[in-house]
């Protein structure tokens, strides 16, 4: 498997019109639920917000990486949203965010090492300015996947 295989076209949404963090997180969490990554929205969101409370997940360059380990995660994966306008978020550079990558990782990841490894390589790519630029310019799920290829 390659890094881009972490991206599931069904859990990617581009040209979003969300106005708030809550709105975008809810929309992305629903995609994760509909596609079998998580078992429940409420519990999963509580775990995500618990991590949000610990420190900024906006890493600068209009990117946010909400994440947390949650017992409500069935399969490791990510949901990706590209919003048209900047959304207010707690970020390292004080700007808002347009690209939101919501990580779904379980508490118990036994037997999931190959997936975790892939996820770590995927996360690493978010530290690369070229990847981020391509990601933010994505107009379709396929563009998003291509950004990580």
């Amino acid at each position, binding site marked *: 498997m390659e890094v881009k295989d972490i991206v599931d076209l069904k859990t990617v949404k581009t040209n979003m019109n969300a106005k708030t963090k809550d709105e975008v997180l809810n929309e992305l969490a629903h995609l994760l639920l509909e596609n079998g990554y998580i078992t429940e929205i409420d519990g999963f969101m509580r775990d995500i917000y618990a991590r949000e409370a*610990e420190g900024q997940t906006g*890493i600068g360059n209009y990117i946010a990486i909400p994440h947390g*380990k949650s017992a409500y995660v069935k399969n490791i994966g990510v949901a990706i949203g590209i919003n048209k306008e900047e959304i207010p978020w707690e970020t*390292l550079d004080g700007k808002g965010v347009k690209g939101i990558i919501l990580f779904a*990782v379980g508490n118990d990841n036994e037997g999931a090492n190959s997936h975790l490894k892939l996820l*770590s*390589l995927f*996360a690493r790519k978010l*530290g690369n300015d070229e990847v981020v630029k391509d990601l933010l310019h994505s107009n379709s799920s396929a563009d998003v996947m291509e950004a990580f290829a």
Partner: protein
Amino acid sequence: MKIVGVAACTVGIAHTYIAQEKLENAGKAAGHEIAIETQGTIGTENELTKEQITAADIVILAADVKIAGRERFEGKRIIQVPTEVAVKSPNKLIEKAAEVVRNK
């Protein structure tokens, strides 16, 4: 110069690896040799070798949690910062490291 380091964040899923990528890119761009070990949910990866540590001019620890094997760096010059510093200002951090080495 030669830089080694460790990245480790609280959850061990995202910041650790973003910090690694940013530091390695910033280090290479400034003409240094750099290797960053990651300690995350998946365990330790890109583990630093004894030779790498011995040869290093400086150690950068980008960590929000206690790192494993800190004793490996005993006697070396160490810069310790939270992962978000490495994520936010990798170039500045590398400059700072170079400065510390110059002023030794």
